[in-house]
């Protein structure tokens, strides 16, 4: 039995959703705060999953795309006076357009060359954010980004913001599952297995890859939008190469071509960085060890633990 089959059981889904909805009522503010970050990060991570897990294109520019989404809404709301909600689609659109303009040609390159191209894109975006001071405020960042409001109700506290991030994350999860279950999802997996064979069964390989890139950018842009209005401050360093590496690790660590695995890994790794704080300066060493051991014992992702269990159980039944 696969993970998705387990999750498809309605009571599993209902229980998970109920727990997630009730959670902020019981959890301390700080925990809800971390949960918000986890939910926000699932967006760029799932987005990257389209490109990396399913299409076999490793990108190190997801941090930059996340930043494009965040900066678009940050600048539209602070400099041009837009209402936050109205900037959601422009932020997503801007990220997609920029990603396709910068990476549309590169995504057709063979694996390693594409990785190098994405590092270039990552650096270009960071340099522009840092140096186009008239537009982006450069190293000062953009401050006082307004909170998202529904009428007079402003999503200013982590508890209030939580329901928005949860709603967006759940929608993004369901949409992502549907994209992967679509014919496009089949084409992407086929071309990641064998590009030549894919084109010989009429898959327009180039177009499919650009579509995967656009999807990954859309998810990153949506995540960036949420991030900007949650933290309410953006700075180029939040969207540097380090962020890109982190999203890549999160999207690979969870499970090979598993969206649930990506979400799980985002949760585990993001909470690990928080819970490892008592280790002080040894924190990143401990974090590195978790990654190392995870990759050594579960090269196809930590979700294989769950899978092995469930398949062993079903095998025992028959």
């Amino acid at each position, binding site marked *: 039995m696969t993970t998705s089959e387990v999750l498809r059981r309605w009571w599993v889904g209902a229980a998970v959703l109920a727990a997630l909805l009730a959670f902020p009522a019981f959890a301390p503010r700080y925990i809800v705060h971390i949960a918000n970050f986890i939910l926000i990060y699932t967006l760029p991570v799932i987005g990257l999953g389209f490109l990396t897990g399913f299409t076999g294109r490793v990108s190190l520019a997801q941090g930059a795309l996340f930043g494009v989404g965040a900066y678009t809404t940050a600048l539209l709301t602070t400099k041009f006076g837009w209402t936050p909600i109205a900037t959601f689609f422009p932020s997503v659109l801007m990220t997609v357009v920029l990603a396709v303009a910068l990476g549309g040609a590169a995504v057709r390159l063979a694996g390693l060359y594409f990785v190098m191209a994405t590092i270039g894109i990552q650096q270009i975006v960071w340099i522009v954010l840092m140096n186009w001071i008239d537009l982006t405020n450069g190293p000062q960042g953009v401050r006082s980004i307004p909170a998202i409001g529904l009428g007079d109700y402003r999503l200013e506290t982590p508890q209030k913001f939580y329901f928005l991030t949860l709603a967006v994350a759940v929608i993004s999860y369901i949409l992502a599952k549907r994209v992967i*279950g679509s014919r496009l999802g089949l084409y992407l*997996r086929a071309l990641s297995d*064998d590009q030549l064979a894919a084109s010989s069964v009429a*898959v327009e390989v180039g177009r499919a890859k650009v579509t995967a890139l656009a999807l990954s950018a859309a998810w990153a842009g949506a995540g960036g939008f949420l991030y900007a209005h949650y933290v309410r401050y953006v700075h180029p360093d939040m969207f540097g190469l380090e962020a890109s590496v982190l999203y890549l690790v999160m999207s690979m660590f969870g499970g090979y071509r598993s969206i649930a695995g990506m979400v799980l890994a985002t949760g585990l790794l993001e909470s690990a960085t928080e819970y490892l704080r008592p280790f002080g300066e040894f924190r990143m060493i401990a974090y590195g060890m978790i990654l190392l051991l995870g990759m050594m014992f579960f090269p196809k992702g930590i979700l294989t633990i769950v899978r092995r269990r469930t398949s062993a159980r079903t095998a025992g039944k028959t």
Partner: protein
Amino acid sequence: MALLSTSKVSLAFAGVRALVDIDLQIEEGELLGIIGPNGSGKSTLFNVLSGIYRVDQGSIEFRGQRIERCGAAQIVRSGMARTFQNKRLFGTMSVLENVLVAALKGAQGSALGDVLGLKSSARARTKAAEIADRCLALTGLADSTHLIARDLPYGAQNRLELARALALEPTLLLLDEPAAGLNPSERAELQELIRRIHGEGVTIALVEHDVRMVTGLCARAIVLDHGEKIADGASSMVVRDPRVQAAYFGEVESGEGTHAI
């Protein structure tokens, strides 16, 4: 008019002539054999016909359309499918998915329709699933649909590649050494299968090393050597042609009597 015809098709790799002025006609409903020693250009010819390589010179016409500048996916949609000499399956995907991808024939604009759950999308998927089921049944894979392709035994992988090509519902099917690596009984089964596919009206071009298989299946055969077409005619006659014998077994020089086998 021929289903497929090439005129003076030439291709060179870094100066090495892989195909030289190939003129070839494949008639509708035919089962054509293509033989020749290793490196004679058989697979290169298939790669050119199916749009994986671009010709340096010459033209290719398929069903009345010039295709020598078309992309691989476009040529497939116009009705030409192929298999590969070294099996190129989608290794991580299930048997059913391998065939399903082909049965969808690269339908575009599908992502949005599928995500939104449109009726037209559902219909297209149902139709593709029916085609896939039919092709899997024909190739004897109906019981293995949920296995992962790379876990299949070799003989079944071979049939899966054939099923995948059939799911494209081709007018012309190019088979590149389908019998390579098969044992005699699998070979006989394959021969029967090819005959059946041909019987359903699919035109087939078959690249094969096994001369007996070619003479057994194909009325007509062509022979390639060093990228040139050196013989074209009834398969039983062609294999007896002295030039063909020479190409396969080496020059039989009078006086010295050297036989290279």
